[in-house]
Every structure is written in C-alpha cells, then in structure tokens.
C-alpha cells in the first residue's frame, strides 16, 4: 500500500469525529468518489475506530490506535490497528436484520463495515489490524 496518511489516535471515542474528518480529507485528495467519500468511508471508519478503542486498546491502558489510509492498485485501503488481543471477524459478525436481533442495541458495526466496503479483513502479528478495502472506479 502507498500510505497517504498515518496517524496515532489516543484511546478516546471523543477523538473519532476529528480523525474521520482528517481521513475523509485525505481520501478526497485520493479522488475517492463523492458518495463513498461522504458515506461509506466515514461510516465504516467510525465503526472500525469505535471497535478498536472500545474493545481493542481499551484493555491496554494508554495504548494508541493507529490509522493508515492509502492506495493499493485501484483500491482505497484503510487500516485501523489497536493493541488488543484481536477477535474472530466471522464469529463476531452477526446479522442485525434477523428478527431475533433487530431490536438489539448492539451488533451493527461489523455488519455495516462489511456492507459498505468491498472487503474487510483482520490480521494479527504485533497487535490487531482491521483492513478495509474499497475498490475505486
């Protein structure tokens, strides 16, 4: 990936709005189409950041979350890395539209990420990285 932006984010959900705005500005420079720029990217990134802050680095004291945005081939790549233990992407994604889940308060984040981006992957190593890929026209 050719990284266009890399930033360390304090472990605080109040930072999400600012970080998303910064990433969206970078994505505009990368010519991401308007609809994806103002909908898919901010919603999916907000979800990934929330998860990283609330469930990843939250358990690690003053740990930081790292956000990277860039291009790979003809795709926009967004990566959110935290210092948590990681999670099983498949096991944690449930269908919030199922009748038994629709009135639940939680459980829509990963579902939205996977619906709004073309690919969502998670990998480990040092920390936990969620990579979201959006194919560009």
């Amino acid at each position, binding site marked *: 990936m050719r990284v266009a932006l890399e930033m360390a984010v304090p472990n605080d*959900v*109040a930072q*999400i*709005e600012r970080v998303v705005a910064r990433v969206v500005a970078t994505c505009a420079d990368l010519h991401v189409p308007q609809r994806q720029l*103002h*909908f898919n990217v*901010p*919603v999916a990134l*907000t*979800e990934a950041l*929330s998860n990283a802050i*609330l469930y990843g680095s939250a358990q690690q004291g003053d740990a930081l979350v790292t956000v990277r945005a860039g291009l790979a081939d003809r795709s926009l790549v967004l990566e959110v890395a935290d210092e948590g233990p990681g999670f099983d992407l498949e096991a944690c994604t449930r269908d*919030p*539209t199922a009748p038994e889940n*629709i*009135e*639940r*308060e*939680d*459980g*829509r*984040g990963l*579902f*939205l990420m996977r*619906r*709004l981006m073309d690919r969502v992957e998670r990998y480990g190593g040092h920390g936990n990285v969620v990579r979201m890929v959006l194919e560009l026209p």
Partner: protein
Amino acid sequence: MSFTIAKSGEVTLVEVEGQLIVGNRQELKQRVLDELDHGERHFLIDFARTGYIDSSGLGVLVSLSKKIRELGGELRLANLNDDLRTLFELTKLDTLFQIADTRERALESF
C-alpha cells in the same frame, strides 16, 4: 454535534445537528429519557441537519424506541437524507420505525 429539544403540541421534537455517533449518543439517550421521566410520550427526531449516524447511534434509537413503546408512547423519525435512509435500509431499521419525509408529515401522523 448538538441537540435541540422543543415541544409541538403533545410531541417532543428533537433535532440532531452533526453526527450521532459513539462519542455522543449517550447524551441523546439521556435527554430523551429525561423527557420520558417528565411524562412525555410522543417523540419525533428530526435528522434534517444530521451528517451521519453510526451503529451505536442506531442502537440508541432502537433502544429508545423500545423503551418509549413499553411506556405506551411512540418514537418517529423525519428528514433522513439519502445516506441515512440507506443506512436504515441496510440494517432493516426502516421496518422498525415510522419515517416521514418531512417534519410536518411526521407531526400530522401522531
């Protein structure tokens, strides 16, 4: 992000300006719960000036709707832009809420 709460007859009207996301959704929830405690039962949330809502914001709307219904009231929504409407359709929450195109239509429907 900020909230404005006003009354229109028996309806409590909530305007959301900015994003409704994980960092502020509890504030909206508490404001509406406070109104419920004061005896209000009919609520309309107007999203005309809302940028986007994340999953935790959607979750708060679901939980408020349930709570209000349990107390014999109703929560309706108005003025979802195309992106927000897409979000509600993706999550099928458009089947759970009554959503009006305008504030006036929503108020008339109570």
